[in-house]
């Protein structure tokens, strides 16, 4: 391994790391720790060093309109790190690598997922949204979107991946603001979450954030209208 590599001066460790992030756009906290350890020949191990390493990476990639962001998975609340395009979201959705038909399909998918009650749709419903595209092509595109961490699939249901939410936040707020209110607890936008049942409240909070509140306080209370929420099934 190169001897002149250091944690806080951008060098080949950081470049190796960025190359790795290109092939896996989203990575778990453990995965990230292992990756940085492997790249640096286990020189970078403790959390402070990893933080410094990530800061060095982030300040470098900002000038490219990219960022390495941490988000919590709406599925299980676990941290996910993702390399994202911060240029506004429109560019991503209008991403040149998609054809017009694919793009229309992608926009329709996002709309359907975001405006659904649960924040996810069945794989079958997703396929049925394909317009002007053979089903086999739609299926292939869906596979690609899952592989590239735009969508995540759980029990044949498709939701937005944490990476997609991080990157598309400006796009989602602009087009579907009312459907993605900020969680009362973590302050992040909520696609998959629990709606407060109180009339006129409209608060939507992440399942994992509500779970944390229950663990801490024994009850789940809407932070907006203060009404008690019954346990989820």
């Amino acid at each position: 391994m190169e001897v002149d590599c250091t944690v806080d001066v951008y060098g080949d460790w950081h470049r190796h790391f960025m190359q790795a992030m290109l092939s896996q756009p989203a990575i778990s906290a453990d995965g990230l720790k292992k990756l940085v350890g492997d790249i640096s020949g286990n020189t970078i191990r403790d959390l402070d060093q990893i933080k410094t390493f990530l800061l060095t990476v982030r300040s470098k990639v900002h000038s490219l309109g990219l960022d390495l962001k941490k988000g919590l998975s709406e599925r299980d609340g676990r941290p996910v790190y993702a390399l994202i395009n911060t240029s506004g979201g429109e560019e991503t959705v209008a991403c040149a690598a998609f054809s017009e038909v694919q793009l229309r399909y992608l926009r329709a998918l996002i709309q359907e997922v975001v405006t659904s009650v649960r924040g996810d749709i069945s794989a079958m419903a997703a396929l049925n949204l394909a317009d002007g595209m053979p089903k086999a092509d739609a299926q292939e595109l869906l596979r690609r979107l899952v592989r590239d961490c735009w969508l995540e699939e759980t029990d044949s249901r498709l939701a937005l991946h944490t990476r997609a939410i991080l990157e598309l936040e400006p796009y989602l707020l602009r087009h579907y603001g009312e459907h993605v209110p900020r969680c009362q607890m973590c302050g992040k936008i909520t696609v998959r979450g629990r709606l407060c049942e109180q009339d006129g409240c409209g608060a939507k909070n992440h399942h994992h954030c509500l779970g944390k509140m229950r663990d801490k306080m024994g009850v789940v209370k809407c932070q907006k209208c203060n009404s008690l929420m019954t346990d989820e099934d």
Partner: protein
Amino acid sequence: MPRGRPRQSQNGTRATQDDDDGPLSQSLSQSQSQTQRRSQRRLSPVEEERLAARVVRYVLAAHGRGEPLRREKVRRLALEPQHGGYVNQVLQAADVKLRDVFGMSLEVLPNKRDLLLVNQLPVVENAPPLLAESELQKHGLLVAILALIFMSGDAGVDEDTLWRFLSKLGVHKDHKHECFGNVRKLVTEEFCRAGYLRKEEEVVKGVTVLRFFWGDAASVGVDAVDLLKFVCTIWGDEVEPEQWQEQYERALQLQEAREQREQARQQQ
């Protein structure tokens, strides 16, 4: 496997440079200087930086999806219409960014139409794989095919030989492969479209067959000396790259062309 054996004697004929490939020393910097001679106008540093970042984001996205990179597409999709005339300046700035941040260079292939991202970082032992599992396996298949063609010399490899070789590796052209899917399509279309392989049709006894050669992307992006070392490892018997005389000389020529491109770039 390759025809012939590693040579111990001096009888080998020198491998000739494939003229069809054109000079390999075409580089971004050279084509840029031509454009500049035509026009002294340049984008301001701020505009250059903004557009280079756009191009980098586009190139990375297209590369990630395994799409071939075309200069025309970059101009059309990543640049604004009024900046079309500055494509070389922006591509060169994007190359500098890509090297600095990702350790990858953006090469213009000899046909001047296609672009290629090439890793410039030293290979590190035990480093994590930089490709997703399925991409890694495809890459392995491609390297095996490139090695076969490289060892076979300038005449390329006919389809039959290629499929017989691959079947020994458990990859059959008419079977749907677990990882590669439609292998025939991957080899004869995808690898060719990406510029790593070049195919030519020839008629043998009234039947049209394909013959495969290294594509421009392979000549620019694959280190032939490393490939030869890899073949020696597989071959065993403590064979050294130098013993494959023809192939070694060809590998050195390719390496030299790389170094010349690099020098031209640095002089810019």
